């Protein structure tokens, strides 16, 4: 069934389709509608789940950690300050190897207060050990939730699904709604032997000395490496079932491109408009959307970008004292494998609109070598 729904509700429908058993969340703009619709669905019996209405995001994630430790599918959603408050427990979920799914609606971090989008909240969690997937459309968002549970349960790591505040969270698009019964064939009910069970008592998370902790961390890295293939496999399987797939990266008109723009989130769709426009003018330009950020898809990125003459990375985030974060990641992925020039651009922080004009400006600057800096160029700073 097709429906015109907002991005946040696409998340809720994805959660419904996944047969989640415990949900816990705390309100924060611009994520609130996700959990509003979910609590409605729980209340009217559309979803057979418990909704724990906690007093903070810290408790939301720990409640979900507890539920997941009991061996059920569990979900939470948040944004910005809420995600930052969860930080300690983000690590906990990974160390405890719990297949939780969390949606973060990218919102700027205060002060000053801002409810508009940028990626600093989720990207500053990149080293916690969560998988991160950045979505571009409402359909992709709904579908990725379902994929995320399958991925998480396969590698026993939590998955964070990320979408732009307002540009996606509050934008209405047509979504082919997944029916829970159809999804069951793709994502069967969750079962695990590794859980809190009075018949098989174990202690989870007790003190590990230097002689064991190291190996436990090594295993997380192994699981992350495994996840690189699992994400692809799950996506392919999803495509078999539902006819839609998204890949770990999405190249667009890259094959003979002189310049490739690296994008993520909703900027990816905006960029394609400019790529088509410039292609019509005879300019060889393409784009590469990064959907999977953790684990980082080194090979896929290399394969596409190594063929370009130039790469321009568009970052809606900033690592203060360094560069844009996707820029860092791309640079490190290509280091020693190709010497294609990579130029970094910072845009759209605090929700400033990244219009087709802005993308075109970046493309032209990159093509014409009009960049004051090689690594970091701020676009549209009014001072």
């Amino acid at each position, binding site marked *: 069934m097709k429906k015109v729904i907002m991005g946040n509700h696409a998340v809720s429908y994805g959660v419904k389709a996944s047969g989640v*058993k*415990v949900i*816990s969340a705390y309100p924060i703009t611009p994520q609130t509608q996700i959990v509003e619709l979910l609590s409605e669905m729980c209340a009217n019996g559309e979803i057979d*789940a*418990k909704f*724990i*209405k*906690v*007093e*903070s995001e*810290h*408790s*939301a994630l*720990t*409640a*979900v*950690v*507890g*539920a*997941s*430790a*009991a*061996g*059920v599918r*569990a979900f939470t959603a948040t944004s910005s300050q809420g995600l930052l408050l969860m930080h*300690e*427990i983000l690590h*906990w979920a990974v160390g*405890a190897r719990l297949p939780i799914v969390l949606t973060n609606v990218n919102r700027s971090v205060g002060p000053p207060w801002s409810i508009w989008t940028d990626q600093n909240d989720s990207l500053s969690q990149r080293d916690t050990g969560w998988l991160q997937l950045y979505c571009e459309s409402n359909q992709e968002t709904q579908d990725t939730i379902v994929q995320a549970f399958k991925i998480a349960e396969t590698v026993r790591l939590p998955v964070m699904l990320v979408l732009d505040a307002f540009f996606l969270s509050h934008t209405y698009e047509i979504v082919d709604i997944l029916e829970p019964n159809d999804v069951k064939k793709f994502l069967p009910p969750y079962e695990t032997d590794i859980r*809190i*069970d*009075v018949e*098989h*008592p*174990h*202690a*989870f*998370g*007790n*003190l*590990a*000395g230097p002689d*064991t902790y190291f190996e436990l961390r090594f295993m997380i890295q192994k699981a992350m490496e495994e996840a690189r293939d699992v994400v692809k496999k799950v996506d392919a399987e999803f495509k078999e079932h539902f006819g839609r797939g998204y890949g770990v990266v999405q190249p667009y008109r890259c094959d003979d491109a002189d310049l490739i723009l690296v994008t993520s989130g909703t900027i990816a769709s905006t960029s394609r408009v400019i790529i088509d426009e410039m292609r019509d003018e005879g300019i060889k330009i393409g784009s590469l959307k990064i959907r999977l950020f953790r684990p980082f898809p080194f090979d896929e990125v290399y394969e596409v970008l190594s063929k370009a003459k130039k790469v321009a990375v568009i970052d809606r985030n900033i690592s203060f004292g360094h560069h844009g974060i996707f820029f860092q990641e791309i640079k490190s992925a290509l280091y020693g494998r190709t010497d294609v020039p990579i130029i970094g651009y910072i845009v759209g922080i605090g929700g400033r609109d990244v219009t087709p004009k802005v993308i075109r400006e970046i493309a032209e600057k990159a093509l014409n070598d009009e960049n004051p800096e090689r690594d970091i160029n701020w676009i549209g700073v009014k001072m």
Partner: protein
Amino acid sequence: MKPARIPEEEYMTSGHVACQGCGATQAMRFALKALGPKTALVIPACCWSVIDGPFPHSSLRVPLFHTAFEAAASTASGLKAGLEMRGDTETTVMAWAGDGGTFDIGIQSLSGAAERNEDIIYTCYDNEAYMNTGIQRSSSTPVGAWTTTTPVAHYKKRPKKKIIDIMAAHSIPYIATASVAFPEDFIRKFKKAKEIKGTRFIHVFAPCPTGWKLPPELSVAMARQAVTSKVFPLLEVTEHGKRWKVWKDFEPTPVRDYIKAQGRFRHLKDEEIKAIEEEVENNWQLLLAREQMSMNLPGLNKEDDDS
């Protein structure tokens, strides 16, 4: 106080790594005897995150999930919800936290869980300081006490936070205090708690010889004196915070003796001890007045039920 049978079954085994005379360890042994094998524990950062033993060992015969310092109540809420969604409605989920994890850093998640009336037992074993990290003050440290962050020159000047009042204000179905020096009462209360639905809060007095500068063999004696000197009254609060019942059937002993026996109070001068004695008596009187008041509330059960 009615005698209760102390179950012979042991759910705590040797191999734990507690200090000698650790009240928190005795408390766990009694609590599990009362609750039995269908119990799942959630333990935040505290001495008990170490006592159970290092990975991959455990000295307990029940499952245990370690969680972050401030997250015992919320993790337990989620665990209970998860078990129920699996169809397991029998397992008792118990959060087991220190005074720091309860009175201080964990009070937010505890308050949230209690207000929602989550179906969990929350036990605070109170050794009156952060012992895991080396004896720093908590808001449960009593007035007058030395800790490493309240050195003798600036010993603790503020009174211990009244956690029972705070929990009673949450209108939860069952609140009790218990002491390792009174195992029958202890076990009776945990058994009673097990049968009640909703949030049950049990405040356990658990001496720490290491932190209190006390010979380990005096641990239980100190716990007993805390009760008989009225420093730590044994009580129950039922009827959703309204009905207070205080145990009074004991030979009172001087607060002074309790204080004098512990190195952590060694610096206190006579008049300072006197002030503490007065405060203990005032709190006791307030407690009795509260009990009396709760007797006269309309519609509440006046009868002693089972003690």
